[in-house]
């Protein structure tokens, strides 16, 4: 119980670090703002949807790039989707890798694409673990009876 302020401080610090390190951008704040009493789990829902979608997309990308003849158009469209969803939740780093990825696609640079995919996976896993940690922290605060501090 007494841990609530500490948890809250921790939460704020952690969130701030996520912004500072570029994992997240303002779009995430937007999401947080959209969450209210009527939709208490909005952020988690959206982000889970994002995770689900991302894993599907990463699988699709991996498959597409393994083909003998790579259909760059298809790859590009996957990346485009990834870019859209990641920017929607504010996963900034993922988004920027997507931009690089699309450039590689345009150049039909398979090596580049594979590298980007690797990077994309990496960034995705990073942001996922960060966000999961954040959500756990949130859970803890809520369980401890505290409220989630608003950023800004």
């Amino acid at each position, binding site marked *: 119980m007494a841990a609530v302020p500490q948890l809250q401080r921790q939460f704020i610090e952690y969130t701030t670090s996520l912004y500072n390190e570029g994992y997240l951008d303002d779009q995430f704040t937007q999401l947080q703002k959209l969450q209210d009493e009527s939709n208490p789990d909005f952020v988690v829902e959206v982000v889970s949807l*994002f995770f689900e979608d991302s894993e599907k997309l990463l699988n699709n990308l991996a498959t597409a790039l393994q083909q003998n003849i790579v259909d760059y158009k298809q790859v590009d469209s996957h990346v485009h989707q990834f870019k859209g969803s990641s920017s929607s939740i504010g996963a900034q780093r993922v988004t920027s890798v997507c931009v690089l990825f699309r450039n590689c696609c345009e150049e039909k640079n398979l090596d580049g694409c594979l590298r980007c995919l690797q990077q994309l996976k990496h960034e995705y896993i990073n942001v996922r673990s960060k966000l999961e940690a954040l959500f756990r922290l949130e859970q803890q605060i809520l369980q401890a009876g505290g409220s989630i501090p608003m950023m800004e």
Partner: protein
Amino acid sequence: MEDDNAEDMEVEVLSSMWPEDIDAAGKKFNVEKPGGDQDLLEDVTFIEEPTIVDFKRLLELTNYSEKGSSQLSYLVKNWEWKQENAVRLLREELENLSKQQHESELKKLEILEEHQFEDEIYGCDKRPVSILDGVDDIFQDVPKRRNDVIIQDERLEIDDECDINTVKYWKQRALHLEKMLEASVQREQILLEKLEESIENLEKQSSPVEELSQILKRADNFLHFVLQNAPVVIGHQDKELRYRFIYNHFPSLREEDIIGKTDVEIFKGGGVKESQDFKREVLEKGVPGKREITFETELFGAKTFLIYVEPVFSKAGEAIGVNYMGMEITDQVKRREKMAKLREEIAVQKARETELNKTIHITEETMRAKQMLATMSHEIRSPLSGVVSMAEILSTTKLDKDQKQLLSVMLSSGDLVLQLINDILDLSKVESGVMKLEATKFRPREVIKHVLQTAAASLKKKLILEGNIADDVPIEVIGDVLRIRQILTNLISNAVKFTHEGKVKINLYCTADPCPERSNILLNEHEKNEAQSQETVVWIRCDVQDTGIGIPETALPSLFKKYMQAGADTARKYGGTGLGLAICKQLVELMGGRLTVSSKEHQGSTFTFVLPHKVPDLSESSDETDEYQDMDDNESMEDDKTCGFFQFSPRTLGSLFSSNGSRQTHELPRNVHGFDKVDRSSIITDQANTDHDDQDRPFHNPCIQKNRPSDMGLTRDLMRVNSGKTSGSIFSNTLERSKSTERRKVLLVEDHVVNVMVAKRMMKQLNQDMDVVNNGVEALRAVQRGDYGLILMDVCMPVMDGLQATRLIRSYERTGNWDEARLAGVELDDHPSADQILEPRRRIPIIAMTANAMSESAEECFANGMDSFITKPVTLQNLKKCLEQYLPLNNTV
């Protein structure tokens, strides 16, 4: 016997000696012409030639030259061998003969012995010679057995018969012996004769010259056989390069014309000297050589010869002349030259190809660079427009004077950059052929007026802006109003830029095909419905005239080129990118028109463009006009609609603008086709400076223009009227608005779950109802069924993208049916009621949601009929603004 022998040997000798002795042999046969002449078909009895060749020279040669001597020695050896053989044979013969002689002598001796014996007998007797003769007849009867074998017997007989008939017998015997002797003598005689004959023969063959000449003759025959038809010339020239021998199968000159003469003495023309020099060179250097020489002589025309010249040395090693061999290779040279030429051509071709490839490569690179520039520009533009929009919003808040000043600088700088980027984008669009033209109805008068208003709003000089529209210009025409406005704005701003005092004028009039019905239509607005539905094309000419600095004649040709300005001074003094006019020209040409300029320095310039426009079927627009009239109840409408003259002075002069007497402030937007309605609203309702600063912003970027703050009631009213006009009357709408109860639904067309979720949540927060569909086809179905106040359209979607969907929706709005959509393969419900009930069909604002990629560029969005775009990720702020602007009944405002 001897002859046969000799012949055999000769053949053998010749075949083996030929290669070695060819020079020596050649010398003897050659009739040299520096260029053989095949054209003269004179067939020479060649065999005669060698006889002409002087043996003296041959001897000389054989004596002096090494080769000659070796050949000679060979010949001599050969001759000696033959002689030896002959001698041996003769000796044998002689031996034979002497043997015979010996035998015959022995015989003779024998006979003589016998004679002696007889003599003895005769001695006994008298020798009656006469008797002997006389008893011939007697003796004839007797001899029956006169054989050598019998002789002995006879002798015996003689002995026996001696007694009996001695005289007669001896007589007979003597006669017989005499005869034998005679025969022997005769034989001896014959043998002697034969011997003599042999000796004579021997003497006859003893001349080596004859022998040699025979051999040579054979060699000659051989040569002749081989060289009969060969196009070669073989010759020998002495130290002074005088011909000593020459062989030429097709001689054109007689021997005496050649022998003893040099090339130069024989021929005249190109190549002769060269060949002579070459021969001399060989002679001097003592090294054989080959050379190709092209002769150009009167004697046999142009011919190329490959000549081989070889020095001939004396035994002392001194060069005494040259052997010369020439072959005519004119055809080969020709062929070779042709080949060389071909090869050269191929090389040139290849070089050209490489060059071309390089050019293509460069072009591709250039295109890429351009594309990149365009992409970058676009990427820059999106955030920049955000900055500018925000600045605009900021400018409406309470600011002190300094802040306002700073903000205005910020805005104008932002505008400049935006303009530049737009220019670059436009240019690359037009150049790459991506630019699509839209055909929308618009009113030229309004366009002119707006452009002038816009220009006037930002005018900082004491200039008068005037617009003159001739009566024959249709009220409404169809064309790409965005582009036309762009051109006009560009030309006007250009004119204003370079004019320091006086006027800038736009004259608009029809040129080629003026519509004669125009005045009637003007008079009978209401009858238009029934009147006509023709779609004629009018050519409208537009002059943009200024009284500015003008353009020097020298600068005119490069005026429309990219990044070119009239002069370096101009650029420094007036700034600008030099893209504007290039874009104008390209746009005008894209629309099928022409842009020209005429100018006088210090007096002003006139830019003129002529464009074809369709005149629309007027029935549809009249409805709307009616509506406006109902709604506005504004008597100035008619005036304004046909008004042909506008004049604006800069706001610094006091009034915003004045028209020909009518109350401009009451003017209301009539353009239901959307693009400029907001502009107009804001102009009318808001005469604040800040707002006018916006006016010269690129009009085709609605994002900037439309994100203008519009919290003034009237503006909202107007917007409401424009976009929110439904089946109900204006009045009811107004009522609804005041209560703020009814909200039109928003349709979100988006395939991505996360985006959908976020957008949904945002809408919820904004208290806005929203339907969601996942692709363009679904969007069409939704539009067909439902009634939406606004569509948010993702651009990239599966099945059907946002651009196509928008196009099809616009087509529906225009035509009232979904034929085009069905044509595109979209299955739609047969929903006749939906097709017909909503008439006239409103134009639903469609906002694109783009991710800032080139492929979904704003231009493309507009070209496909979208009204604006918001960039992804969508923020609450953006969404809110968008709703405020396009769906003004929203509660949250």
